[in-house]
């Protein structure tokens, strides 16, 4: 997992930050999550260090609100299996009409293990050989190839559902999702997530090809989304242009390398180590851990509630700030940081020069509410 080179000063500090725990492996989902709130130093730092945010959050008493229903997981697996069964017969049929895949293009190779050995290094080597044409078996579909992408200090291993190689020699990333495409429309949020994940694979694949001296341009930015059509489990193929997502991703990866700037203000002794006992139960005092967390500033917004494992902890921390009420509220309150300030101004407290404009409005608003509701401000 750790990078091939000996860890530099930054890596060393990130390792200390993480403590004894093994770094959580990035996957396409966590990498794409980096773009969810790029303005948050706390998140950026912990992700770069591979800290298990879930565990931290649970230990300080704010477990992440995300769980996955086994029905959803089961549905996902069942659908992927169905698409891939019998040499991905259904998929071939779709690609033939969708990408006018040539009838000779049926080669199907399984990269889930190498001769029964699931080691990621082996699988990655094998994937590289196959994708860079170092073996000559006719291949069209690559089932769960194992790619690598450098994220922050270390390599993340990535497993796309499928990669299709067209006769014209260009690669198309295929993402199999189990959310439905109904009358040509799908949940825009889920498609967006799928798109950025595909972008992660495209990036990793381009790097792989480039390293092998090939032309990364051979990896198409037109990825293919396979999802159930309407209410049945018949798959449908839709192509998704991920150029924008690639742009976003590249920016994030660059930011990850600039992580030093974020480390700079933190005390050198800072660590999120859980001090686990033999069977992994954390022994580190909660307060201490919470205090350590507080040393890295977070930029909480309600949007975090759906994207970040630490959201509840950060929300509690942000209580009393206008941002906790939503970005638009904070904006309407003229960027004032705390609700108490806003209310004080509404009550007529003398504003600072910077607050002068908003103060007028708040006072006015308070008067109107008072007139119309007989409300008096706390």
């Amino acid at each position, binding site marked *: 997992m750790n990078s091939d080179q000996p860890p530099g000063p930054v890596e060393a500090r990130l390792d200390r930050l993480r403590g004894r725990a093994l770094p959580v492996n990035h996957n396409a989902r966590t990498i794409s999550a980096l773009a969810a709130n790029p303005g948050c130093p706390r998140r950026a730092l912990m992700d770069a260090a591979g800290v298990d945010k879930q565990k931290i959050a*649970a230990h300080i008493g704010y477990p992440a609100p995300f769980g996955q229903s086994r029905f959803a997981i089961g549905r996902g697996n069942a659908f992927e299996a169905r698409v891939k069964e*019998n040499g991905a017969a259904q998929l071939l049929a779709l690609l033939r009409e969708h990408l006018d895949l040539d009838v000779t293009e049926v080669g*199907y190779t399984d990269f889930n293990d190498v*001769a029964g050995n699931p080691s990621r290094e082996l699988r990655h080597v094998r994937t590289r050989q196959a994708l860079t044409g170092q073996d000559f078996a006719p291949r069209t579909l690559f089932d769960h190839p194992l790619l690598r992408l450098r994220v922050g200090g270390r390599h993340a291993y990535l497993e796309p559902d499928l990669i299709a190689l067209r006769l014209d020699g260009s690669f198309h990333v295929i993402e199999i999702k189990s959310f439905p495409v109904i009358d040509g429309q799908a949940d825009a949020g889920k498609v967006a997530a799928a798109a950025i994940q595909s972008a992660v694979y495209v990036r990793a694949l381009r790097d792989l090809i480039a390293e092998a001296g090939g032309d990364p341009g051979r990896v198409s930015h037109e990825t293919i989304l396979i999802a159930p059509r309407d209410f049945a489990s018949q798959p449908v193929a839709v192509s998704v242009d991920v150029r924008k997502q690639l742009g976003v991703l590249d920016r994030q990866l660059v930011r990850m390398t600039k992580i030093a700037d974020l480390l700079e203000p933190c005390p050198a002794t800072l660590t999120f180590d859980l001090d686990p006992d033999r069977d992994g139960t954390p022994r580190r005092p909660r307060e201490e851990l919470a205090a350590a967390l507080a040393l890295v500033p977070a930029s909480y917004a309600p949007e975090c509630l759906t994207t970040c494992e630490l959201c509840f902890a950060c929300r509690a921390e942000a209580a009393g700030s206008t941002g906790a009420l939503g970005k638009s509220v904070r904006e309407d309150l003229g960027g004032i940081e705390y609700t108490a300030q806003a209310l004080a101004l509404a009550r007529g407290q003398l504003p600072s020069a910077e607050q002068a404009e908003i103060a007028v409005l708040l006072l006015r608003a308070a008067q109107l509410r008072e007139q119309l509701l007989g409300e008096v401000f706390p």
Partner: protein
Amino acid sequence: MAETIEALERRIDELRVAVREAVLSGDPALAKTRRAELKRAEQAWEDALAVATVSAVPAPAETVSGQAVPEASPVAGPGEPGSLLPLREQVYEALSLLQVPAAPKLIATVHEAFFGSTFPTTRVTSLKRDEERSFRTAPFARPYYICAALSADYLSPSRGLLAVSTWPMERRVIGSLSPRVDFLTAAIRVADAIERIPTPPVTARRLLQRFAASIPGASGGARDQVKPDVVRQAADAELSVHADADSRMRREAADRARRQLANAEQLFGAKLQPVSDEAGPNAG
């Protein structure tokens, strides 16, 4: 002294809540222990009921651990005709009809379509282990074994595919084109089988439809009445495209297998030193 049914029911409800709380608080270990407790309570409840109600409860067809994803087990309506044959025989019937290596799901579907009974795919996977064990204890004692298909490159067992030991090695090795070739061959076999039956059952016709849907020109327009001969022609047509390349690859791999592998490995696949239990049963 066993608790009353009501008491048990209350316990079960409480434990369910307890488990969920453990999960939500991000404490998998605690959740695990409480789950076990819950299972015990539920069992106790079942037993208590069994005592209470005189009706003798036949053992369930299979017990799936609480961890298993329900979707994995088949959704069979009550009163489905079960076959009297042992599982390996049923699998054999299906594979003999298909004449190509196949995945448990396809095997089960084929058997349901043409032999009127189905079985949980989960059991088919364990079947392979039993077969290997019995072969290693008494080689060639049985007329045939349900064995693995071998991946052409490493001659290791190819994930999730079953074959029959009496087939020629050429048929049991899987090159990169083989999945497609075998799919087309299977389609043809199914088409033949349907033609042999005077009034093919709905399940059989639906199976043929499923095949036809993924073969160019096989559906011949109307998706509801696919014609066996149309499917056969279409499959043959595409088969002719891949056949040579595929059989070349398979012959080469088969020779290698016969040269390099011991009997057991020829049937159940060569193993690298397994690095994790995921690598399948230990070759010893």
